[in-house]
């Protein structure tokens, strides 16, 4: 049985639930479901490293951050379960998707052997030389830590700046 379409339907449905739920706590829970669904999509698309990160960071840390935020602030009160539709925003979103969808025909088939990404020299080079040059059997780790090490250093700088920024914004408060 093909798992793709039910999975995509599940992910889109939980994203929609996140969008329409009025209670922010409900939206956060729906978003955690969505993150977990996306993590399964990464597994299906053969990206186990991304799936692990998504499940730990996307579904885990992000959800905790959101929950801490609403614990420190408020949730909108009221009886309505769903948000009222916001027509201008809907128009913008539909227009945006429409414009993007016009590019669909120009995109290569997913999983085809002759796509630019798969046949690219970079992909072939990494897969052929990662073990010899970096000594790691996992090509993703080799690229992350060796070939694109400066990129990862930049990422660490971003995380550090975010930490400093948080401390500045919150003043003496502690985010926990």
């Amino acid at each position, binding site marked *: 049985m093909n798992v793709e379409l039910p999975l995509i339907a599940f992910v889109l449905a939980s994203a929609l639930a996140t969008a329409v739920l009025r209670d922010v706590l409900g939206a956060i829970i729906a978003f955690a479901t969505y993150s977990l669904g996306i993590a399964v999509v990464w597994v299906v*698309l053969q990206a186990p490293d991304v799936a692990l990160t998504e499940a730990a960071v996307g579904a885990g840390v992000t959800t905790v951050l959101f929950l801490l*935020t609403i614990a420190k602030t408020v949730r909108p009160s009221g009886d309505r379960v769903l948000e009222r539709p916001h027509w*201008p925003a809907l128009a913008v979103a539909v227009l945006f998707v429409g414009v993007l969808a016009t590019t669909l025909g120009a995109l290569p088939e997913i999983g085809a052997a002759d796509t630019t990404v798969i046949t690219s020299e970079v992909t072939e080079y990494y897969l052929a030389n990662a073990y010899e040059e970096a000594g790691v059997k996992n090509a993703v780790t080799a690229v992350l830590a060796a070939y694109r090490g400066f990129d990862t250093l930049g990422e660490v700088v971003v995380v550090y700046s975010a930490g400093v920024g948080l401390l500045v914004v919150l003043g003496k408060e502690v985010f926990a």
Partner: protein
Amino acid sequence: MIDLLATRDYYLASFLLLGVGTYVMIAARNFVKKVIGMNIFQTGIFLFFIAAAYLEGANPPVLTMDGPHVSPLPHVLILTAIVVGVALTAVALGMIVRIYAEYGTLTEDTLEEVRNGE
């Protein structure tokens, strides 16, 4: 047409997620929900990249497994992007906590009123 959609289903899902993210970012009046919308938008872009790296019948880019492998480069870019996204979310939520401490509200319209009333 059906064939076009069936072979590019993840791309279409990615576009729809971008649409949902845009909608939430514009429509939500609560700041926390706007940040959730931003996160949905991000994952839409991630889906586009990971789908582009996919090769039918291939193994993950772990060299102990037999080839062919999917491309490792988009995976690396998205790993970096996920972590940067969390950093972004953390700063945004910190600002939201601060806004609430200063103005006592988390909704766009009320914040505007409070600021204009000062």
